[in-house]
C-alpha cells in the first residue's frame, strides 16, 4: 500500500476502533453500557487545545507586530542619522566659509601680512576650495537613448577619460554636476551611480571646464581621450555635446584636511628632491 492511500485509510486512530471492540466484547460479557459521551477529560483536552491554538495565534500576530515596529524604528533611525549628518555637513560648510572670511579679514587688516592674502586666495583657487569663474567649455554627456545594459551607459571610466582629456587640453578647473574636482577627487562607481567627492551623481552629466575656449575643444578632440569619446559616440551611441561659454562659474568644494602629508623639508625629505 502506498503512503498516501495508507494515510487516508488510517486517518482515524485505530485505537478508537479497538477500544470500541473491547467495549463491545465487555458488553456481551455483561459489563457496563457503551460509553460514547465526551467526559471531563475530553473537555479538558479540548480546553488545552483551545489555549494552545489561541496562544499560537496571539504569538504569531504579536511577532509580526513586533517585527513591523522594529522595522519602522530602524527606518526612522536611518532617517534621523541621515538628517543629522546633513546638518553637520551644513555646519561644517558654514564654519569653513566663516573661517575663510575671518581669515581674509584678519590678513587684510594686519600690515605685516603683506602678500599672504594673495597667496592664500591663489592657493584656494588652485586647490578648488574657492569658487572660480572664467571662460571655458560646457560638456554634456548622457547614456545612449534606450540604454538597456551598462554597455550603453556612461561609466565612471568614461567620465575619467573625459576629465583626463580636458586636463590634457589645458583646463584649469573642472566640475561635474556641480562637484568641483580637486587633487583628491575620485570619479568612481558607487553602487549603481557614479560618485564624485563622495556625492552620487545622476545623469545627464554636465561637465564645466575653465580654460581657453578657443583651444580647449580642438585640443580635446586631438587627444586620445577625445578619440575614445568619438568612438563611444559613434559605436555605442553615448550622447556628447560640447559648447564654448564666455563665462562659467564653478563652485568650491570642501577640501578634506590632510592628516598624514606634511611639507617635506630638506631634513625630512628622503625621496627625490
Amino acid at each position, binding site marked *: 500500500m502506498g503512503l498516501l492511500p495508507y*494515510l487516508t485509510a488510517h486517518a482515524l486512530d485505530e485505537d478508537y476502533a479497538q477500544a470500541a471492540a473491547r467495549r463491545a466484547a465487555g458488553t456481551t460479557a455483561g459489563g457496563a453500557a457503551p460509553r460514547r459521551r*465526551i467526559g471531563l477529560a475530553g473537555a479538558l483536552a479540548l*480546553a*488545552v487545545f483551545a489555549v494552545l*491554538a489561541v496562544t499560537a495565534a496571539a504569538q504569531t500576530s504579536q511577532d509580526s507586530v513586533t517585527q513591523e515596529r522594529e522595522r519602522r524604528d530602524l527606518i526612522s533611525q536611518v532617517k534621523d542619522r541621515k538628517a543629522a549628518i546633513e546638518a553637520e555637513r551644513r555646519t561644517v560648510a558654514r564654519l569653513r566659509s566663516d573661517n575663510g572670511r575671518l581669515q581674509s579679514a584678519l590678513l587684510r587688516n594686519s600690515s605685516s601680512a603683506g602678500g599672504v592674502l594673495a597667496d592664500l586666495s591663489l592657493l584656494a583657487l588652485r586647490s578648488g576650495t574657492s569658487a572660480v569663474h572664467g571662460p571655458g567649455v560646457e560638456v554634456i554627456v548622457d547614456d545612449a537613448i534606450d540604454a538597456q545594459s551598462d554597455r550603453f551607459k556612461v561609466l565612471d571610466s568614461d567620465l575619467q577619460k573625459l576629465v583626463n582629456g580636458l586636463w590634457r587640453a589645458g583646463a584649469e578647473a573642472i566640475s561635474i554636476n556641480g562637484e568641483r574636482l580637486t587633487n583628491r577627487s575620485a570619479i568612481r562607481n558607487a553602487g549603481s551611480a557614479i560618485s564624485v567627492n563622495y556625492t552620487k551623481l545622476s545623469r545627464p552629466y554636465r561637465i564645466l571646464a575653465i580654460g581657453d575656449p578657443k583651444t580647449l575643444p580642438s585640443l580635446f578632440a586631438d587627444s586620445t581621450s577625445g578619440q575614445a569619446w568619438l568612438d563611444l559616440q559613434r559605436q555605442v551611441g553615448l550622447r556628447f555635446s560640447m559648447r564654448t561659454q564666455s563665462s562659467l562659474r564653478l563652485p568650491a568644494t570642501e577640501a578634506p584636511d590632510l592628516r598624514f602629508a606634511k611639507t617635506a623639508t630638506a631634513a625630512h625629505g628622503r625621496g627625490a628632491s
Partner: protein
Amino acid sequence: MIAVIGLLVGVALGLVLKPDVPIGLEPYLPIAVVAALDAVFGAARAFLDGIFDDKVFVVSFISNVFIAALIVFLGDKLGVGAQLSTGVIVVLGIRIFANVAAIRRHLFHA
C-alpha cells in the same frame, strides 16, 4: 455540550491569560497546534462514527502534541528541522482532510 464548554473556557483562558511562550518552546508551538488539531478532528469523526472514547482521545491528543514537538526538536538538532516540520505538516494535513471528509459524509450524508 461539555465539549463546547471546554472549548470556550480554553479560548477565554487563552485570551485572558495570554500565556507567554518561553523562547525555547516557540518553534514547537505551531506544529503542536496542528497535531492537536488532527487529534480533535479524529475525535470528532470517532464521535460521529459512534466509537468515541474519552481515554483514547486524551491519550492521542497528548501523544500527538508530544511527538510532533519531539520530531521538530530532533530535526532541529539534526539540522533538518524545516524539512521534518514540513513532513509532519503534510502528514497531519492529509489526515485532517481525510477525517473532515468523513465528518462531512456523516453530517450531510453526501
